[in-house]
């Protein structure tokens, strides 16, 4: 009941004309960047951060959230028509969606992914509404030791467990943590790793890191390795309507996809890849005609797309209730909150309840807007896909440098941007994931604060992390996650 009242207040906020407008701008921008290859939601929010500091936080955050899940909708259009998955979570969709398009069924493929995204997004938002207050109740009992243990757990899953290589994930994380240390120590005021450069005393801004890795690094990589590749854009012919048969095959897949996506998004283990692949393989197993998979089976589009969207909404649970980001975009959203001097976490639901519930209410509204934007107006987005790549990347970099430059009006930030671009290029070329670095930069300083606070309370006694049951369980779980794969491999080798 209390939740319902809070949500209704949230709708009051979200339905204000100005906030509706910000939401609309957000989902439209989000769809556009989802459609455009080379631009993702993390990059877009990062570019906009320095430009929106003077806006009202509620409106700006509603816009950013719109960009985040709008990109999930838009991404499927590109995947289906161009067969270039914009993000790893769309790979499963590419398998079947592009085959459907090649077979002249692009319309139903786009429809099932848009409606599936809508269904999954809406169900996931309901789950978020119900779950968030419960998590907040638990989180309010957390002290610094618990928070620190939880952050270590999040670091480990994001860096070590989800990627292809544990050591490369950890390297990326350490790099992010190192960059997070640059600047003035928040507890004592001592400068660290600034080497007397005034721009470094402020710390490395997440905007420069994210834009450098995602925009400059990506542009360098594509110019060097992919500028002469040409994709074939499938034609959007025929009707968008799904047949009765399509509906019958789609809706169970949507629901199952949601069931996979939301939990994976909401536990601090992030990542939308695992649930999309789980959904894909489940649909393949359950299908009456598994042979159709690989030749354009509609379930193979419906399930993963739903899983993808549900996971995106799910990541808002740890972000809003605990202040823990589990994806690169969530980390930058956290940076957006911090830009306005707001720290997400359980207290947010009390101190900024209008903002947080307005944001949640805006998700319901945004989902409806996105359904309209992505079905009747799909033709516009197909045109966006025809922007020539040379001018597209040139335009992206004009905006990317704008965001970085407007931080301090200093060329130093532009130089740092290029250095991070080179780093992003190398990381992409040699398979080092970038998300852990971004998460490390944002979450590292928070983890350090909690760690030192916990030790201050215990007067320097490190046993707090092992005697508090919740903290100890998170740390034990973390150790298990690192050691288990190694032990399993050893055992398998021993038995073979």
């Amino acid at each position, binding site marked *: 009941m209390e939740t319902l009242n809070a949500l209704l207040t949230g709708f009051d906020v979200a339905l204000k004309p100005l906030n509706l407008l910000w939401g609309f701008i957000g989902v439209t921008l989000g769809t556009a960047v989802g459609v455009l290859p080379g631009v993702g939601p993390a990059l877009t929010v990062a570019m906009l951060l320095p430009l929106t500091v003077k806006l009202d936080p509620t409106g700006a955050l509603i816009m950013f959230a719109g960009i985040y899940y709008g990109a999930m909708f838009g991404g499927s259009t590109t995947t289906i028509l161009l067969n270039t998955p914009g993000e790893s979570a769309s790979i499963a969709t590419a398998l079947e969606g592009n085959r459907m398009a090649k077979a002249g069924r692009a319309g139903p493929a786009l429809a099932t992914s848009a409606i599936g995204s809508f269904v999954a997004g809406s169900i996931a938002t309901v789950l978020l509404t119900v779950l968030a207050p419960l998590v907040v109740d638990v989180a309010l009992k957390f002290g610094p030791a618990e928070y620190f243990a939880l952050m270590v757990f999040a670091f480990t899953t994001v860096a070590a467990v989800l990627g292809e290589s544990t050591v490369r994930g950890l*390297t990326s994380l350490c790099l992010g943590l190192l960059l997070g240390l640059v600047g003035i120590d928040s507890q004592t005021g001592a400068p660290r790793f600034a080497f007397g450069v005034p721009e470094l005393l402020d710390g490395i801004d997440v905007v420069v890191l994210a834009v450098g890795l995602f925009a400059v690094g990506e542009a360098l990589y594509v110019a060097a390795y992919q500028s002469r590749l040409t994709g074939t854009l499938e034609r959007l012919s025929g009707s968008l309507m799904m047949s009765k048969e399509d509906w019958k095959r789609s809706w169970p897949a949507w629901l199952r996809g949601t069931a996979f996506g939301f939990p994976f998004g909401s536990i601090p283990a992030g990542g939308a890849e695992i649930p999309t692949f789980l959904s894909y393989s489940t649909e393949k197993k359950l299908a009456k005609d598994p042979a159709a998979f690989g030749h354009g089976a509609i379930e193979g589009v419906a399930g993963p797309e739903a899983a993808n969207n549900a996971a995106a909404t799910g990541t808002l649970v740890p972000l809003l209730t605990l202040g823990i980001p589990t994806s690169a975009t969530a980390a930058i959203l956290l940076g957006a909150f911090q830009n306005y001097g707001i720290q997400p976490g359980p207290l947010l639901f009390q101190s900024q309840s209008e903002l947080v519930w307005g944001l949640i209410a805006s998700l319901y509204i945004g989902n409806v807007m996105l359904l309209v934007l992505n079905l009747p107006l799909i033709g516009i987005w197909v045109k966006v896909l025809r922007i020539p*790549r*040379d001018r597209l990347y040139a335009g992206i970099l004009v905006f990317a*440098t*704008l965001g970085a430059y407007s931080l301090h009006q200093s060329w130093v930030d532009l130089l740092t941007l290029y250095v991070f671009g080179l780093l992003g290029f190398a990381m992409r070329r040699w398979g080092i994931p970038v998300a852990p670095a971004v998460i490390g930069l944002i979450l590292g300083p928070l983890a350090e604060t909690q760690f*030192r606070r916990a030790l201050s309370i215990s007067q320097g006694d490190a046993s707090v992390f092992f005697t508090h049951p919740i903290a100890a369980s998170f740390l034990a779980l973390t150790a298990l996650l690192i050691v288990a794969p190694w032990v399993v491999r050893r055992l398998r080798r021993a038995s073979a």
Partner: protein
Amino acid sequence: MASRRSPAEIALSAGVLVLGLATAAATLMLPGEGGYAKIGPNFMPGVVAAGLVACGLWLLYEVVGGGWRARPSDDPAERGDHAFHAPGFFWVSAGLGAHLVLIGFAGFVVAGACLFAGVARGFGSARVARDLALGAVISLAVFLFFVRFLNVNLPAGWLAPLLGSAGI
């Protein structure tokens, strides 16, 4: 998949190790007093330095053992790419470099036009004049929008007489 001890892997692994050692050295110069917590501003840097050193050693160990595990292929075709195209990399970098140098005195619009043309060139466009013009138009639109509506400070530079008080 014969033994492939790639120079890039060795360089990157060693780079991580050296970065870790450099961090450790810089950490030694940080103050250590910590009040109640008994740890100071140098504690976390020490942990991160140790982490980087450990990662560097681990990466080198993988190189010695036959190369990094499950990393992208060295054959561009296997990654779905074409061979390294140096002019692409160069022109994108040149565009960014020109922008960095120009923005301070020539202003946002001029720098933006050069950046746009450089990047477009890197992606294979041969029409420099058109790209410069297009870049100038886009940068001007961006400039006017952000300066007038969002109060973002951007340098007008050479175009200051034309743009009036819009910029700084």
